[in-house]
């Protein structure tokens, strides 16, 4: 069973729909036993970082998430919450990825909105996906490059489009909104 972490974040329905299109059922839960026993865990997210972290803390999910041992995928804000900290609301985050989240300097349009390609390091998450493929991004904050970066996108400056450390994965873009190539990435995650 795939578990989506329920912490009141937006965008959960579209992730669930994307899984359903792949023929995969998922549950939306904040129960520790269900999250621990799930085959894979997804931390979705559209929203504001400090609010989201408070929601996680209220349910003690800030303790649980780092202790998970199965593959975990953070999407957009979900990925940012797996980093060390975020400038958005001056937020202490979960500290899995060794990087910080900063606000874009508005030298180009912010949020970074639309389809963009990434330069990809070899990772099972990007099997069959090339640096010519585009994903849909929409975000005003970005994770700095670090040793966990497995895909780099360039908008205003190079930033982490995807991160991986041990069993934890994160993507800044929205695979659930990125047509076939996004579905491919979700399938890769499910196949881990």
């Amino acid at each position, binding site marked *: 069973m795939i578990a989506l972490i329920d912490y009141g974040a*937006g965008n959960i*329905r*579209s992730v669930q*729909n*994307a899984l*359903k*299109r792949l023929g995969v059922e998922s549950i939306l839960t904040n129960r520790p036993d269900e999250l621990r026993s799930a085959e894979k865990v997804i931390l979705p997210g*559209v*929203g*504001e970082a400090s609010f989201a972290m408070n929601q996680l803390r209220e349910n003690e999910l800030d303790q649980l998430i780092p202790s998970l041992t199965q593959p975990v995928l953070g999407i957009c804000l979900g990925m940012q919450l797996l980093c060390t900290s975020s400038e958005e609301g001056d937020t202490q985050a979960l500290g899995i990825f060794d990087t910080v989240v900063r606000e874009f300097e*508005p030298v180009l*349009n*912010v*949020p*970074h*909105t*639309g*389809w*963009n*390609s990434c330069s990809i390091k070899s990772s099972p998450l990007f099997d069959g996906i090339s640096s010519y493929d*585009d994903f*849909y991004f*929409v*975000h*005003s904050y970005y994770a700095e490059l670090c040793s966990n970066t497995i895909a780099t996108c*360039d*908008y205003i400056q190079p930033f982490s489009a995807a991160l991986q450390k041990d069993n934890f994965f994160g993507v800044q873009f*929205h695979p*659930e*909104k*990125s*047509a*076939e190539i*996004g*579905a491919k990435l979700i399938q890769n995650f499910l196949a881990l």
Partner: protein
Amino acid sequence: MLKKRIIACLDIQDGRTVKGVNFEGIRDAGDPIELAKRYVDEGADELVFLDITATNDKRKTICSLVEQISREITIPFTVGGGITTLEDAQAVIEAGADKISINSAALRRPELIQEISNCFGKQCVVVAVDIKKIDDEWIVFSNGGRVSTGRRAIDWCIEIVTLGGGEILLTSMNNDGTKAGFALDISQSISQLVTIPVIASGGAGSIQHFKELFTQTDASAGLAASIFHYQEIAIPDLKNELKKSQIPIR
């Protein structure tokens, strides 16, 4: 590199697409889901569903359609038409829309932009601005283009950004339906003026018009409805031609 977006717009009435279409292979040409899926397969970057007869009692129809769209469609989509309150926006977003588009209601009560933006984030607030050139000045019109607000387009667009709008969908009434090309001058003025994406709409009649839009202005996206409906321009041809001209296209 961030790509320029091609956005297909579908006009919806009572849960059906209004403009007739002649696509082969679509069993029910009036079914917005079938048409939308066709656009996705053809490579449209985003879709806009405009409920042109939206009233309160029809809200449920559009919400159930939005739920269906969000189950089937794998790219971002915007829903507009008749959204006048935060509650309207919430219903459509909770049904699965990625963005909502507001127009006259924002002109009547600009704080609506702020309310929706604060609640759901600015990325989901598209403000549609209908403009007409009068005596060398671009003026904003409301109520589907019937009522002049007397406001200058540039003033209203600056206010939209200040209030937390996420994108501006700029439609030139002078160009709309003419198939003579986008309004390049004002599309560029607004794109340079604001720090949020501008979607140019109105006047697309050929591939050349999109080429002009993306080479002569900083608009982030071009939107069209009927030329895609009637397949006067096939989206794959359009995107291939733009790519050949070195325009960043998915």
